[in-house]
């Protein structure tokens, strides 16, 4: 029953696409007959269920982007209109949603949903219809290993590249100041391990010896033994592939053993507002990669933060920023190619993004053939009690503090 319906929808979609392609060909020089209407953009988001919190964040980001674009006169002189469906965090629904958005509603463009689990099935549907698929979430390796020809991740970097700026900075240090040994502790989780081991590979290539390499299950709460191993190794630098509670517990356990590294970097946790509340005054010098911060002095970011804050009463977070970035990426392609509809236009948009760099609120983005962004995350550090951007040079708010003061 349902397969029959889908195949009918697909035939309809193909016919629809063919007609659109025809009209596009016929009207390309004159500017198009029915091109005066709004550009509709289809999105399915987890507004309820497991991912409701980040899902709503992405929704706010998309809506902020649409409002800004319309205030500035629209795309190609046409207004943009979002059509957002709720997939209830369910991978089956997300497929049905994109099918109906593309085939029945005949939206001109689609934006991606939230989270790897939903991005992969949604991208597959968009791929079947040949639609450009830019997505704001889904940094895990499997997203890029599916062979999608239409997918672009609208964020600065995949997990493995989060520490790239830090790696470059360490490699550039004079030999006598460089750390010589490193300890790594990572949660057994693809994202957390990706961040720590991405840096580990680069450090080992640079001749910095790995003296501790600990992987712990996500349910670990007692970190005193891991800390004891790290302390015994007396490594010059400690890198944590962490989420939240693991970083906090590990840092406190290290402090209890009076381990004083020259450099300490932990993913995710230090950018959490709860972090300084939990660690207290001993955060000084802790480094962390981050994909977005409202303070970043990047072109268009200031305007985004201002207009977003005005509309919503609070500054945007990373989910909102990544959604906004998605909008900026698609808009750049649409403006450059000069079309926004189903059919041949989509492939032109895809081809354009393959070869070009786009300026966004998270910095300039470009992609490899699987849709991995080629950038790196900014590096933040606690300096004088506040978390500040220290790398890369172009956007830094403070000088990187090295060696790290005692905690």
């Amino acid at each position, binding site marked *: 029953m349902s397969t029959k319906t889908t195949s009918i929808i697909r035939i309809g979609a193909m016919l629809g696409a063919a007609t659109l392609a025809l009209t596009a060909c016929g009207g390309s020089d004159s500017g198009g007959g029915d091109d005066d209407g709004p550009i509709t953009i289809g999105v399915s988001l987890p507004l309820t269920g497991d991912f409701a919190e980040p899902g709503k964040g992405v929704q706010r980001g998309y809506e902020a982007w649409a409002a800004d674009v319309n205030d500035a006169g629209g795309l190609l002189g046409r207004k943009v209109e979002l059509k957002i469906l709720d997939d209830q965090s369910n991978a089956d629904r997300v497929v049905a949603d994109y099918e109906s958005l593309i085939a029945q509603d005949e939206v001109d463009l689609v934006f991606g949903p939230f989270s790897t689990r939903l991005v992969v099935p949604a991208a597959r549907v968009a791929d079947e219809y040949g639609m450009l698929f830019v997505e704001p979430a889904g940094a895990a390796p499997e997203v890029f290993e599916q062979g999608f020809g239409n997918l672009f991740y609208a964020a600065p970097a995949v997990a493995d590249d989060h520490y790239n700026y830090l790696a470059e900075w360490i490699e550039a240090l004079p030999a006598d100041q460089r750390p010589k040994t490193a300890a790594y502790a990572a949660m057994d989780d693809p994202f957390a391990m990706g961040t720590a081991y991405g840096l580990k590979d680069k450090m080992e290539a640079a001749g910095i010896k790995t003296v501790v390499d600990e992987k712990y299950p996500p349910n670990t709460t007692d970190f005193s033994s891991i800390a004891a191993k790290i*302390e015994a190794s007396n490594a010059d630098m400690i890198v944590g592939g962490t989420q939240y509670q693991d970083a906090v517990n590990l840092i406190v356990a290290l402090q209890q053993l009076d381990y004083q590294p020259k450099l300490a970097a932990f993913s995710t946790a230090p950018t959490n507002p*709860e972090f300084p509340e939990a660690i207290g005054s001993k955060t000084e010098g802790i480094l962390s990669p981050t994909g977005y911060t409202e303070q970043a002095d990047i072109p268009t970011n200031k305007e985004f933060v201002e207009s977003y804050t005005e509309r919503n009463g609070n500054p945007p977070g990373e989910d909102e920023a990544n959604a906004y970035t998605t909008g900026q990426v698609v808009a750049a392609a649409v403006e450059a190619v000069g079309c926004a509809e189903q059919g041949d236009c989509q492939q032109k948009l895809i081809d354009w993004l393959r070869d070009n760099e786009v300026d966004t609120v998270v910095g300039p983005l470009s992609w490899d053939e699987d849709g991995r962004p080629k950038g790196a995350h900014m590096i933040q550090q606690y300096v004088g009690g506040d978390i500040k951007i220290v790398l890369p040079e172009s956007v830094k708010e403070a000088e990187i503090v090295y060696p790290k003061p005692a905690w």
Partner: protein
Amino acid sequence: MDGSLFLQSLVLGILLGGLYALLAAGLTLYFGIMRVVMIAHSAFLILAAYLAWFFHRETGIDPLFSLVITVPLFFAVGVLMQRLLVARLRPITLTMMSVLLTFAIALVIEGMLGFVFSGTQRRIQLGYSGASIEVFGARLAVVKLITFALAAASLAALYAIMKYTRFGQALRATIQHKEAAQLVGIKTDRVAGYGFGLGLATAAIGGTALALDATIYPSLHWHWIGPLMAIIVVGGLGSIPGAAIAAMVLGIGQSLLQIPMGTTWAQTIFYVALFATLMLRPQGFFGGRLAQRF
């Protein structure tokens, strides 16, 4: 193996074992008195930890002082729980049904914590959380010493109550032979209620101790109940000294095994010990007469 790392891990293992001993003592007590498998014990631990965190956040006073409130509160809750819920289970299916009942209570506590305090992970920020003293080259964290001292004091108090008070004698008589205890005039129902309260009071102390040195979140209790259950089986169900010794052995074992095996595999010591106990000595390695009746 590095000598100082070994010493450090041994010290950490002893401190961890002390905490395990306190947390397991209550659990084995419920079973001893009433043959109740108390799945919600660790949920009450986390509840006490949250209350300590909340108390500290609201008043700014050291979380240890929250014990003044939580210990009597938990004792009362324990008595009420025994009288109103557990006592109503049919004796024949008591052990099995108590698993279901206390599982439900654990879920309710977890849900309420999430509802009231949200799922955000919390930690009490103490001025001395990172402080430590050095003894023979090993570092002893102040918070872990406090935890250990609390555990030792509570276990000593529990032992003294059981051994030297009339209530303790009545409790032990109830544990050993309920019908005989009734024949000599002990009101076993009332004694069982107080015993249950006593067990929950240890959860209040254990939870507060836990909150000093851990990040807490509502579902944390599931990580604790497995190892604690393994400890009381290895120690002999119902035996408090047995639970304490098993806790110490397994705590030190876990800490030392992490050096060669890593965190993931070191956790399995609890379950390996559980299987070995059930195969070789089902009544437990340190259990007394009570355990042998099973």
